[in-house]
Structures are given as structure tokens and as C-alpha cells.
């Protein structure tokens, strides 16, 4: 079967884990890894896994895009360089799946709104953040039953699973996630908190989701909706689990989640890595299926001035 060829920008934790996910995909084929440091361990790993590499950034990839038939690119760099990367690749008709908190494209949480992005023929979709991917399905599971005035999510990740880019730019992570709790989750107002825990052995990613409903919560329907949503996420992240809840306390609904990863690149504690890469891979697969079926024509966008 034909596969859609993909490039990955950024050979860090996320980029490397993506290689594993894409190699297993029936419709995606990772062919390029883009970095900026010739001595990078990540580029070396990518070469060993059979990918072509460049240490010249996206500019090093551009001359090969058409020849190698790259149609989808994943950006796992930082919010600050994403726009430039996206403009250059969109100009060549490459669809961008953005794993930085730049959020210049539509915000995507697969079980909530992936289908609508594919229908809209987007050229840039943003995967928000690991915290967003882990919690927004639960916010939406409550908000699709009844209106949620405020949702608050607390993501706790192990110190070893958080790279230097996220650490140095924690505010972007919080802003993007809070915004998406509303825009995608469906709460009217929202807040995101992130905690980095250094325990050794590392703790598995934990997430708590609080929703304040406008009216008394319909406990039975919310419980059913939450359990259905957990099953949807488990289709691409098998280690997504409801540990406790939903707990009802007045109009407050609390869900306590755990996310274990598949252990591809980092060990299973780094569920935050997996939920991000698995969501990105699932998003790209949906687009790839549309492209292969001839329902979606990638179009070259003029490079923004």
C-alpha cells in the first residue's frame, strides 16, 4: 500500500519517539529528520533508524521536499521558530502537524475534533501540549453532556520526561493549554497547571481534571460519557486510564487520570511524550487516509511575507 512520506523537524525526545510511531503506521512513512546541530545524538539515532538527515534546519530539507515526495511535516522544535518553518513548508504544499505551543493552526485533540479539521482541509494543525492531549478529552466528556463554566486541569509529569525547551518556556505551555481547555474542551473559562516531579524511579504522568458545571451535574450521563471518552483515547494511547472518579462534589466534577506510554523511546512513565506523539501520528494518519483516497488535495500556500 502507498504511504504518505513525512519529515520530522527536531530530533529531541518528541521527534525521536515520533519515528517509532510513524514506522508502525500503515499510511505514514518517516523519511527525513531535520536538526540544527551536526553532533546531535538525535540526528545520529534517526540515521541509524534509516532516515535521511540534515543539520541545516528546515532550509536543508526544502530542496528535497518535491524530489522525495514529502507531504506531511511534524514540527517538534519550539514555538519561536515554528511560524518560519510552517511558512516555508506550506509554500511547497506540505501539511504541518505542529507539536510546539505556537498554536498558529487549528487546535486538534483527535477524539474531540480531528474529523472537523480534516473536513476543513487545514494546512497547519496544532497538537497543543501533552497536558492538553491528556486532559481536554475529559473536559469535553463533561461539556458535551452539560455546560461547563470553568475547567481546571493539573498535569504532573516526571522530571526526566521534560526537555530543556519546555522547561525554559513554561509560560507558553500554560497559556496554550489553558486556551485549548476552552476552545476545544468546551469550557467557558479554563486554567492549566503543570508540575514537574523529580521522584526516582520516575512517576507515571498523572492528570486531574476539574469541571464546574452550571447546573447540578447529571451524574449517570457524565459517568457514561467519561468512560466512553477514555475508550476513544485508548484507541491510540492504550495506557490512558481513569484511576479515580468521576467524583461529584456539588457542581464540581473531578477525574483523576494516569497516562502510561508504550515505552518506545522513553520508558513507560513518560506517558506525556506518548500522548503527544500518538495524537500527532493519529492526526497525520487521518489526513493521509484522506489524501490517499483523493478527497484532500494539498495545495501550495504562498509564503507569508
Amino acid at each position, binding site marked *: 500500500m502507498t504511504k504518505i512520506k513525512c519529515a520530522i523537524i527536531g530530533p529531541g525526545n518528541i521527534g525521536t519517539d515520533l519515528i517509532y510511531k510513524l514506522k508502525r503506521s500503515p499510511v505514514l512513512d518517516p523519511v527525513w529528520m531535520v536538526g540544527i546541530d551536526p553532533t546531535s545524538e538525535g540526528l545520529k539515532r534517526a540515521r541509524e533508524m534509516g532516515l535521511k538527515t540534515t543539520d541545516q534546519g528546515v532550509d536543508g530539507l526544502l530542496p528535497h521536499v518535491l524530489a522525495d515526495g514529502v507531504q506531511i511535516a511534524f514540527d517538534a522544535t519550539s514555538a519561536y521558530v515554528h511560524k518560519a518553518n510552517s511558512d516555508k513548508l506550506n509554500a511547497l504544499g506540505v501539511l504541518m502537524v505542529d507539536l510546539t505551543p505556537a498554536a498558529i493552526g487549528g487546535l486538534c485533540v483527535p477524539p474531540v475534533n480531528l474529523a472537523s479539521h480534516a473536513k476543513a482541509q487545514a494546512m497547519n494543525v496544532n497538537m497543543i501540549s501533552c497536558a492538553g492531549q491528556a486532559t481536554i478529552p475529559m473536559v469535553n466528556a463533561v461539556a458535551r453532556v452539560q455546560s461547563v463554566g470553568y475547567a481546571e486541569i493539573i498535569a504532573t509529569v516526571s522530571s526526566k520526561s521534560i526537555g530543556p525547551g519546555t522547561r525554559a518556556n*513554561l509560560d507558553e505551555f500554560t497559556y496554550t493549554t489553558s486556551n485549548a481547555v476552552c476552545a476545544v474542551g468546551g469550557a467557558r473559562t479554563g486554567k492549566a497547571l503543570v508540575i514537574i516531579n523529580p521522584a526516582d524511579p520516575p512517576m507515571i504522568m498523572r492528570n486531574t481534571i476539574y469541571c464546574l458545571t452550571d447546573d447540578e451535574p447529571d451524574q449517570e450521563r457524565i459517568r457514561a460519557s467519561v468512560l466512553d471518552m477514555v475508550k476513544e483515547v485508548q484507541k491510540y494511547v492504550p495506557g490512558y486510564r481513569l484511576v479515580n472518579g468521576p467524583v461529584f462534589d456539588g457542581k464540581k466534577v473531578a477525574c*483523576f487520570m494516569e497516562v502510561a506510554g508504550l515505552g518506545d523511546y522513553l520508558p513507560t512513565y513518560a506517558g506525556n511524550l506518548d500522548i503527544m506523539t500518538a495524537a500527532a501520528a493519529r492526526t497525520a494518519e487521518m489526513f493521509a487516509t484522506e489524501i490517499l483516497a483523493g478527497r484532500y488535495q494539498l495545495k501550495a500556500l504562498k509564503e507569508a511575507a
Partner: protein
Amino acid sequence: MSELKNLKGRRVLVHDMALRDGMHAKREQISTEQMVKVATALDDAGVPLIQVSHGAGLGGNSLQHGFAMHSNEEYWDAVVPKMKRAKISCLLIPGLGTMKELHSAYDHGVRSVHVATHCTEADTSPQHIAYARKLGMDATGFLMMAHLNDPKGLAEQGKLMESYGAQTVYITDSAGYMLPNDVIERVRALRAVLKPETEIGFHGHHNLGMGIANSIAAIEEGASRIDASVGGLGAGAGNTPLEVFIAVCDRMGIDTGCDLFKLMDLTQDVIFPMMDHIVRVDRSSLTLGFAGVYSTFLLHADRAGKKYGLPARDILVELGRKKMIGGQEDMIEDTALTMAKERGLFKDKAA
């Protein structure tokens, strides 16, 4: 610490925590009138720095950390114009508070900030420390749960914060777990790597009754800033009680510029009547200090214990065993639920 050093004439900058850390002990329910009353009395007693905000600092108003009676901005607007000498400070924990809120704090007259991270995660603070300096604020790197990093490791983290622009690095004994030798080793390690002009601070909790002794030990090794809280109003068994600390400093000839009798009166006449529970070493707060658990977990564990029929002490010990750190208050109810299920006290309908 074989022999007490002569500290006569040593200058120490005290920083009161009652209107920030004390918010935890009051479940964030302090009125603006009470804030003004306490802050003006502290100012009048010569306390140079007073922290005023939600207990969890900027961005603290949340389901996770509780909603205060007023926004931080309302508290600052009430307190700042009343100050004759004292500067008002705030707390910022990256991941909870952001630069937007720091900017707002500056706009409302706040001039000093503790930028707080867990003692191994200093590299989550560069944006916030640099931004505080850019605004012209006094910026402190505040290494929480400092007992969980060894002296060498803590010194490396402090050095990072200094490199981001922190003018002071704090050893923060959030669990009230440290003993004087733990403090001495950490101050020494920091002093050995920090620039001479970078100050060292100590923030104690009184869970093992060591607040004063630890603060004095820190000063002996060269710390020049001490956090304390009038009447001991703070999380757990409270912070180092300010008036007791000042009395000890007076006896030792340490120069704090604070008026002991005014602070005693403030404690007795205003702070003690404000307390919802007596902030002291009791079964739960002693458990915090003994097990090395974040002091703010105290009242949350009491509540979860009552809700699920478990002793708060059991929950606190389990949180310590699972190495939960500051900010993970959501894991208190989660842990209580899991323990209640294991003990057959609670049936989970979803399971």
C-alpha cells in the same frame, strides 16, 4: 556547630510571610481589612519586606489551591498605598503563575518576588526571574523542599538561578524537615559557588520546632535574609515565628531593625484571634516534619481524611512515600480515594 559564632552586629533582612504563607492556614480567607491591619502594624514595627498574596502566589486562585476572598490585585491595592517604609513582595511558582501575572503585580506596586521551583527544577524559572529583573524588581530564587536535594545538587540549582538574574537564593524548608546541620551544609555549599554579592536566604517551617534554630544556623554560615511569619501564621505548624526570632536576634545582637514589643503585641492582639485553628506542632503538622511532606498539604489531608474516613496521618505518610511535591494537592484526594478503596471504605461506581 560545636560552638556558637559571635553574630553581634550582623545585619539580617527579615521578610514576613503571614499574609502569604498564612493564607494557607486561613484557607485563603483573609479580608482586605485584616491584610491592611497586619501589614501596617508590621510596617510600623520596622519589618522591611512583607509578602502579600494568595497562599500559592500568583495564579493561585484555583480549585486546586482554593479561591481567596479577594484577587491578589485587590489585596495589593489595599495594602501598598498604606506602607510607609516596607516593600510588598509576592510569590511566583512557574507552572502556576506566569509573567502576565508578574507584570500585573508590578503594576500594582509589588517590588520583590520569590520565584519558586522544586529544589531540582530551577531550570523552569529563567523566564520569570529575568522578567522580574527587567521590571526592576528584587528577585529571589526560592528552592522549595530543599531537604530533597543534597548540598552539592542544591548549590548547582542555586547557581542556575543566579545565572538567570536572581539576587538572592533561598533554601526553602517547605516540609519543616531540616535540622540545623542540614541547613549549615546547604548554606556552605551555596556560599562556595555563588558570587559574593548574591545573598542567601532561609525560609523555615516549624513542624519540628526548629524554625528559629535553623534560621540562626543559616545566619551563622552567612545567610542574610530570613523569612518568618508574625505569630507563626503559616502552613503546617507555621513558619518561623517572627516575634520569637526577633527576640533571639536581639539577645544575640543580630541587627534586624524590628521592634520586638510591637511584634509581640501584633501577635497577641491581632494574629492569634485571627486563627481558625491554633497553628502549632500537633499530630498532623509533626507528621509533615517527620515524614518530609509539603506543609501546605496539612489542611487538605485533614479534609480528605474526614471525607473518606481515613486518619490524616496515614494519608500524609503515603504522600511522603509517593514523593509528592508542592503543587500536587490534587493527589491528596486521589491518594485518599485509592486508600479508601483498598481498605474497603469506598466503592467506586465507575470501576
